[in-house]
C-alpha cells in the first residue's frame, strides 16, 4: 500500500503549480483522491474536526442503492428476450443476453460522461465531481435495452454539457442530468424510445399474440379506443407469454418490458429503503411523489370520465417509471426543492402531474419524466415562497 502512495507522491509535483502537467492537475487529483482520502486538515480557526462523510461516500451510497435495479434489469432484459421468442433458457443464458445488451450501454454512458467531466475539469480548472458517477448509472437504467449505443453517447454528452456544465457543474444544474438525457432522446429520436422497443428480440420472431406494448401504452390505447376497462385489457395482453403477464403482482415484481432499470417496483423499493435509511435521499420527496400519484389516481377514479381514469389508483404506482423516478430522480437534492416544506409540495406535485400527463396527454405515455423536469424548474419558486415564510415569521416577531 505504501508503495502506491510513494508512486503517487513521486509524480505529484509534475501536476502541481509550476509542474510539467500543471493543466491536468485535477485529473491527477481525481485519481489520487479516489485511491486515497487526502491529507487535508482543518483550518486554524473554526471546526477542527469534521464529519466522516464526504461527497464520494454519499454518491457511492446512491450508486449502491441502484444496484438492485441494475441487476434485476440485466436479468429482465434477457428474460423478456427469451419469453417473447418463446424459447426456454437457463439462468446463465438469460443473464448472458442481459449483460450483452446492458453492459455496453453502461460503459458508453460512463465513458462519454467521464471524458466530458475530465475535459471540463481541465479547461475550467475545477475538481472532478462525483455527481456523474450517479448520473452515468441512471442513464442506462432509463433507456430501452434496444437503444443504439451512439444515441446513448450523444444523449449523455448533451445532458452533461447542456444540462450541467454550462451551469457550472455538479450542484449548480437546474434540471436532473439523467432526465435531461432521457428527454433529449425522447424528442430527438422518438422512434428508438417509443413503440416496440422495450423488448430485445435480437432479430428473432416473437411468438404469435405477442405484443411489445408497455402497460402504459395498453392503458392509453384501451382508453382512447373505448375498449372497456383498462385492467381487463391489461389482463388480456400477452397472455401467450404468461397467464398473468400484466397482473398487478407481476408489474410490481417487474417481469415486464420497459426501460432497463425501471420495471421492478420491488427493486426500486429496496433501493429506496437504503436511500431513506441512510438519509441520503429525502424520504419526504419520495413518499410525497407516491402520495401525489395515488391521490390524483383516486380523484380520477371519482370522476371516471374515461377508462384510463377508472384505472385503480394503486396501478399507477407500479406501471411505468413512477417508482423509479420518485426514488432516484425526484429525490436528487440539487434539482429538488431544498427546503423541508418545499420537498413535500415538490414531490406531491410530481406525483399529481405524472398521473395527469399519463391520462390526458396522448403524445407522452409516460408522465414521470416530464413531471420531474417541470417541477425541477418550479422547485426554486417553491423554495422562494417557503423561505419567504421564514423571513416573514422573523419580521412578524419584530412587531410583537
Amino acid at each position, binding site marked *: 500500500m505504501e508503495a502506491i502512495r510513494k508512486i503517487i507522491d513521486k509524480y505529484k509535483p509534475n501536476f502541481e503549480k509550476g509542474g510539467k502537467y500543471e493543466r491536468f492537475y485535477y485529473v491527477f487529483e481525481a485519481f489520487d483522491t479516489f485511491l486515497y482520502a487526502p491529507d487535508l*486538515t482543518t483550518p486554524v480557526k473554526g*471546526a477542527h474536526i469534521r464529519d466522516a462523510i464526504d461527497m464520494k461516500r454519499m454518491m457511492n451510497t446512491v450508486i449502491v442503492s441502484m444496484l438492485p435495479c441494475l441487476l434485476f434489469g440485466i436479468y429482465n432484459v434477457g428474460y423478456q428476450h427469451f419469453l417473447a421468442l418463446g424459447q426456454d433458457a437457463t439462468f446463465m443464458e438469460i443473464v448472458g443476453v442481459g449483460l450483452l445488451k446492458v453492459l455496453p450501454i453502461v460503459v458508453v454512458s460512463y465513458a462519454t460522461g467521464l471524458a466530458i467531466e475530465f475535459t471540463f475539469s481541465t479547461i475550467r480548472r475545477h475538481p472532478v465531481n462525483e455527481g456523474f458517477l450517479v448520473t452515468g448509472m441512471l442513464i442506462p437504467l432509463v433507456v430501452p435495452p434496444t437503444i443504439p449505443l451512439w444515441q446513448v453517447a450523444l444523449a449523455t454528452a448533451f445532458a452533461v454539457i447542456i444540462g450541467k456544465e454550462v451551469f457550472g457543474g455538479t450542484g449548480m444544474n437546474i434540471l436532473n442530468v439523467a432526465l435531461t438525457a432521457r428527454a433529449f432522446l425522447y424528442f430527438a429520436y422518438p422512434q428508438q424510445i417509443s413503440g416496440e422497443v422495450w423488448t430485445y428480440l435480437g432479430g428473432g420472431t416473437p411468438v404469435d399474440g405477442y405484443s411489445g406494448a408497455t402497460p402504459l401504452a395498453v392503458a392509453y390505447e384501451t382508453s382512447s379506443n373505448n375498449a372497456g376497462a383498462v385492467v381487463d385489457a391489461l389482463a388480456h395482453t400477452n397472455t401467450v407469454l404468461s397467464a398473468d403477464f400484466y397482473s398487478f403482482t407481476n408489474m410490481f415484481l417487474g417481469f415486464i418490458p420497459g426501460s432497463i432499470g425501471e420495471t421492478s417496483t420491488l427493486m426500486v423499493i429496496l433501493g429506496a429503503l437504503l436511500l431513506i435509511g441512510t438519509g441520503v435521499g429525502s424520504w419526504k420527496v419520495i413518499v410525497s411523489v407516491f402520495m401525489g400519484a395515488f391521490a390524483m389516481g383516486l380523484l380520477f377514479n371519482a370522476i371516471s370520465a374515461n377508462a384510463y381514469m377508472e384505472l385503480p389508483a394503486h396501478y399507477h404506482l407500479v406501471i411505468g417509471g413512477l417508482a423509479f423516478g420518485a426514488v432516484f430522480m425526484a429525490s436528487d437534492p440539487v434539482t429538488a426543492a431544498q427546503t423541508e416544506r418545499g420537498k413535500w409540495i415538490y414531490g406531491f406535485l410530481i406525483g399529481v402531474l405524472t398521473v395527469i400527463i399519463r391520462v390526458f396527454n396522448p403524445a407522452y405515455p409516460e408522465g414521470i419524466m416530464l413531471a420531474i423536469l417541470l417541477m425541477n424548474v418550479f422547485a426554486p419558486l417553491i423554495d422562494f415562497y417557503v423561505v419567504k415564510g421564514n423571513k416573514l415569521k422573523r419580521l412578524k416577531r419584530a412587531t410583537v
Partner: protein
Amino acid sequence: MSINIKIKKGFDINLKGKAEKKIAESPQPETFAIKPTDFPGITRPKLLVNEGDTVKAGTPVMFDKMMGGIMYCSPVSGEVVEIKRGAKRKILEVKILADKKVEYEEFKKYSVSDIANVSQEEAIETLKKSGVWPNIIQRPFGIVANPEDIPRSIFISTFDSHPLAPDYDFLFKDQEANFQAGVDILKKLTPGKIHVGLNGNAEVSKVFAHTKEVEIHKVTGKHPAGNVGTLIHYVDPINKGDMVWTLNPFGVIQIGKLFLEGKYDCEKIIALAGSEVRHPQYYKTYTGSCINKFVENNLTDEHTRYISGNVLTGEKISKDGYLGFYDHLITVIPEGDKFEMFGWLLPTFKKLSFHRALGLTSFLTPKKEYKLSTNTNGEKRAFVQTGMFERVTPLHVLPTYLIKAILAEDFDEMEELGIYEVIEEDLALCEFIDVSKHDVQKILREGIDLIKNS
C-alpha cells in the same frame, strides 16, 4: 417569566479525553499574554506599554482607538517582555513575564449592600477602566460591546455543551456571591431583564440556580443547548436594530469580584482535555496563560494540534501558545495530515458522523467516545446535499440559505434570513457535518463583517 426550552435539533459530539474533575498540582506558567486577535470587532488596538515596563494585574495594556475608554488590562503582575507583531505590524501578542506573587491594581471596594447604590455611570466607568468590560459581548455580530449602547436585555448561559467542555459548576464552585454581585452590577446597564440559562440535562446548578433578580430559563437537549445564541433565540430573539449583550459566567464573576474585592482578578480554572492528553484534568491559572507547562510531558503523542477552546470553535495555537481571553479549555487532538487508502469507501468504525451513508457506523453506537483527528475527511465541493444544516440548528433560521446569501454578498437576503441572530458558534455544527466541507464559520464571519461595516 421563566421558560423551559427543549431543543430537539442538534448533535452531541462525544470525544475521548474528558477532563477528570480534579485540579492538578502544576507550577504556574512563566508568561501570560493578551492577544488583540481574541476580540472580534477590535479594529485599531493601541498599546499603552512598552517592552520592559512593569505592570500589575489590572494595569491597562492596550485599548481600541475606535472605542475609547475600554481598557484591556494585564491579567497578572510582572514585566512586559515581548510585543509580538505580524504582517503590517499588526499586534499579535503582548507577553508578560509574571511575578511569583500577583500584585493587583487597586480599585474601589464595595460591600454587598453598597452595590445597590452604585450609579450607572460609576458602574460603567469602573467596568471600562478595570479590564473587565471586554467580557461583555454584543449581539448581533458577537463583538465587544460599546458602553454607549443600551442593550435590550443581557443573557448569560451557565453551561457549555461543546465537545469536551469544562463543567461550569466545577469551574465556578463557591462563587455564588461574586456571581450575584456581578448580576447586580449588570442590572444597572440595561432597562430590560437579565436572562440566565441553566442546564436542563444536569442536576440543578448550585452556583447559578439561586441567583436573584434574574429570569432563569432551563435549556434541555443536545448541543448547541448551551450556546447563548440558542437561549436568546427562544427568549428574546434579535431582529434588525435590536441589541442584547451576553456574558460568560466567568465575566460576571470577574465583575462581581471587581466590586466586592476591588481587584481585576483573572484567576481561572481551565480544563485540559482531548484524546492525546495523558491525564486530562483541570488546572488553576490566569487568563492568557502559556499552555506549555500544562501539556509538557502530559501527551501520548507529539504530532498533535493544540486548540485554545473547543474543537468546534477554538483556535489552533502552538505548543508555546497562549490561552484565549474567553477560553476555559485547552483541547489536544491528533493532527490528521495523513492519507488513507480508500478512506471514502471503506467502512469506518473509528470516525464519527452525523450521517448514515454506507460505511458510516457511528449512529449505531451513540454512547461511544471517539478519537477524531483534524483531517477534513474529504475535499471541498459545491453544495449538493440539502436539509442537513437545518437538522443541527435549533434556531428558526435556514443556514444553507443564509450561507448562500453571504457567498452572494446579498445584504437584503442576509438580513432577512437572520444574520443578526447568529455568530460563528451557532453554526459550528453545520461546519462539522457539512458533506461539501465548507468553512461555514469563516463564511459567516465574512457576512457579519459585511453587514457590520455597511
